């Protein structure tokens, strides 16, 4: 089953959010709640948690990409 990884609402009204880094690579095994990516505004960075146990099967945004709240940035195959 596929689980989507989305940018959470974390900085109300923020216009610019960047995907700063992926903390795991495609093919890596992760557990639900593991930190798998970091997104940031100019003041706040947030670690994005895996929505499920599984393997990171796809990344749909690259490091330094500008992203939006709710945008799907990757998938976990669980």
């Amino acid at each position, binding site marked *: 089953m596929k689980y989507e990884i989305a940018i959470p609402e*974390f*900085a*109300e*009204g*923020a216009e610019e959010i*960047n995907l*700063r*880094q992926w903390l795991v690579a495609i093919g890596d095994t992760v557990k639900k*709640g593991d*930190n798998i990516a*970091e997104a*940031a505004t*100019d*003041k*706040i*960075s*947030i*670690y994005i*948690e895996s929505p499920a146990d599984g393997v990171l099967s796809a990344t749909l945004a690259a490091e*330094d990409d500008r992203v939006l709240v709710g945008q799907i940035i990757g998938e976990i195959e669980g």
Partner: protein
Amino acid sequence: MKKDLTWIDLGLISYEDAFVIQEQLHKKCVAESWPDTLLFQENFPVITLGRGTHEKNLLLTAAELLELGIALTAVSRGGDISYHGNGQFIVSPILHFDQYVKGAHQYVRCLEQVVINLLAHYQLKGKRIKGRSGVWVTEPGTGEDKKISALGIAVSHGVTLHGMSINVNPNLEHFKAIIPCGIEDKGVTSMEVCGCPPVTLSDLRDQFILTFDEMFGTQTTRRTISEIESR
């Protein structure tokens, strides 16, 4: 009823050693085996290179930095380049921010306001500048707006990391080694340069705690680092 908060002062410590303690504390806060905490520190001179560092923002070579007694270290955090050193007050609130305020954005606004209120206690007028992070002052000597307090927080598992620094009386020449956070057209200043009478970091810490408690409705008491290790 006021929420209980803890504070720990690591004193003068290397950036790397303090970061290990911060991560240890964060892990315990997430597991709720340690209370929310204000972690204070002062670092030996160091330039930290975040994962988003642009090489052009480091203006000196490693050899030149060594001559000035400034260490250079790559760090796991995102973001650009930054400098820490003696005479700079650093506080990292490690806390479940949503128990105190509504949302991370409000949390940051409140932290900025704590710094503005704290500076006001020392007769300095801090302000925000739209589109720029941190707290700024108009430097009396030059009349220019310069950054006096840098701010950057991270949230992991609902608990904050990192925080803010206030330049009390650091060697501002050291900042010339970098373009702080990649901001080219604005400088950096300190409380000392802005005419504030001498203040020790421990006095500033005590005043910060009072100001923080007033803003966040907390009651902060001291703990020691050995208490963390024993838990």
